[in-house]
């Protein structure tokens, strides 16, 4: 039975109104076809491409262009973006706010990206803050957080979180196993700060819909840091203890709030951590046997959790 036939049956049975039938039928039959998502994707890619091109151009040609020209040009772009956003923005609300125009979110994102490029250029060329150069990054993160919360923009929030991570000495996209203890400690402090801020703001009902982004980023940073530290010679067991504790918290939170990504984090990362620790002292044959037994056990446990708590598709 096609969806249109189902809709007809529901209308005849009185489950949906004739008006709903018309509207939903038009969507299913594609009499109405929205290209909203496609246009948003083009805008997002366009902004990223412009920012990448600006960065490339400034990096390659700043000697020819001159410092003043570069700073003036970048400042002009930032100023136009800021003017556009403040002139079009709806009044602040602590709840979710619809974008006033179709391009509003992307203009703000472009402004923030260009601002970051400009700050990086100024720091590189003039080194005004000398040894305290990293303050530029912290200031940027603060500006991005303010913009994200003022204008309710998730792209800029993600930019703020990654910029804060940069300040903590973490490069999220490249952070992997074998990192130094100092980086792991930074990642853990970063994770705690991001999660704590997100939860605190949620409790204050300030943009509570942002909390998920905070928690996903925080959980990823903390889990990766702890998992990568499990094999450390001296501190491995501390990391393992931390990993298991975080897993319990993550799973409990995930089940209570029905956010099953956190249940998955709490299952996969500790498994990887424990396995890394165990296989160090096992022969190849025993490692394989361990894989079969532990993998099967984890399948059973996760299937139980899925059947007991996570039936939603």
């Amino acid at each position: 039975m096609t969806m249109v036939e189902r809709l007809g049956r529901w209308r005849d049975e009185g489950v949906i109104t004739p008006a709903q039938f018309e509207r939903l039928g038009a969507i299913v039959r594609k009499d109405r076809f929205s290209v909203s998502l496609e246009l948003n994707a083009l805008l997002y890619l366009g902004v990223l491409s412009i920012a990448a091109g600006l960065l490339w151009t400034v990096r390659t040609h700043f000697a020819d262009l001159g410092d003043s020209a570069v700073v003036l040009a970048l400042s002009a772009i930032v100023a136009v973006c800021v003017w556009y956003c403040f002139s079009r923005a709806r009044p602040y609300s602590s709840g979710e706010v619809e974008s006033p125009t179709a391009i509003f979110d992307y203009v703000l994102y472009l402004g923030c990206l260009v601002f970051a490029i400009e700050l990086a250029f100024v720091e590189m060329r003039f080194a005004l803050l000398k040894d305290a150069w990293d303050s530029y990054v912290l200031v940027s993160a603060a500006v991005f957080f303010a913009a994200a919360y003022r204008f309710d923009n998730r792209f800029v929030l993600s930019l703020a979180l990654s910029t804060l991570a940069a300040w903590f000495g973490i490069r999220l996209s490249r952070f992997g196993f074998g990192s130094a203890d100092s980086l792991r400690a930074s990642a853990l402090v970063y994770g705690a700060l991001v999660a704590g801020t997100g939860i605190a703001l949620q409790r204050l009902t300030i943009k509570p819909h942002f909390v998920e982004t905070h928690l996903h980023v925080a959980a990823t940073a903390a889990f990766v840091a702890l998992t990568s530290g499990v094999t450390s010679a001296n501190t491995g067991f501390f990391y393992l203890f931390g990993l298991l504790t975080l897993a319990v918290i993550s799973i409990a939170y995930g089940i209570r709030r029905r956010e099953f990504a956190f249940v998955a984090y709490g299952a996969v990362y500790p498994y990887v951590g424990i396995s890394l620790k165990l296989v160090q002292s096992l022969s190849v044959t025993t490692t394989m046997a361990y894989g079969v037994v532990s993998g099967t056990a984890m399948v059973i446990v996760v299937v139980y959790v899925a059947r007991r708590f996570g039936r939603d598709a």
Partner: protein
Amino acid sequence: MNLYAIADEERIHAAAQIREWTRSGLLDASQGAAIETALHTDLKRTNRYLRVALFIFGTIVVVAAFGFWMVAFGVSRESVVGWSAIVAGVVSCVLAQLLVVQFQLYRFGVEEAFAVWSVALVAVGAGLLTSSGGNGGDLPTLVACVTAAIASAFVFVQFGYLYAAFAAAACAALSAFNLGLSRDAERIVSACVLLVIFTVARTVRRTHDQSFRGDDYGAIESLAWLGLYAVLNLQLSLGFIWYSRGRPDFSSTFYWSTYAAIWLLPAIGLALAVRDRHRMMLWANTIMVAATLATNKPYLGWNRQTWDPILFGILLVAVATGVRRWLLRASDGHRGGFTPLPLVVSADRQVLDVLGTLAVAAQPFAPRMPGETPAVEPGRGGRSGGGGGGADF
């Protein structure tokens, strides 16, 4: 052939649509709940995150079990490894079927892992057996690709996993690169294979329009079309794909024919997508247009400029805003049914939220450890000194 009843799958897809419509306010919560209850099936499902976790653990079980067999019994002869892989693949597939038939699992992750790894094991086994028979050159890879294509198609037909169909199409297309043909011919054969897949999927899709099967075949059709473009765009694969051993020698006629093709294919595809209101084709052809613009200069042998991405970005923004305004200017805010406004708000927002969260990967500042000083002197150039041609940030 499919392990699931069509009626069950239809109900599942209908329930998913009802959920989206309810979230978007097109249906009341009470209406949504009542309809969803009526669409209940006995198939056991889970949410996407636990599905991924179960896929990972299922993968560990399959790989470790095969590894244990190899290590514990000291299997090292190529032919024995090949047969072991084939047997393990068949066992894995049977286990996946058992999980579906016995426990009624539907997109649960663990049975998917068994099915997916059965394809990999059988394909690798077939390749190794061919190699152990004294056949060198491209033949073992060809056999592995063809076997993977057939096995993936089998998994798609049995379980309905769309990604298995994608794998089947990709493996079938890759087979052409192992036939010992000339550089031109292997791409022509590969393109023909993808064109056949595109045509078949398109024909089947049109007969299943407005059903969930139609969406699946539409996705296969779009992917085959995208693959056809990727095979014919020589600049996409030069020095990138493992098949290109150095700069291949393409004939001038072939080279310029492919240049024409990379402009024609997206144009034809976009026309078809708009006519059929086919979202996947719209996405595929948008990607193709972007790829054509990005590879145009290398195709013509022109140098890329640093401001090319700026112009490209401005073009994308201009097209997006232009199309939006053009559609909105029409009466009722749509032209021929096309509207720039979201119809199912929650679905669009979900994608944009994911995109927004993934934007965390965009990091404008390269982090340095505290205490590390900038690489250049204030007001001066870079490491190479003077004017600072080598400076970087």
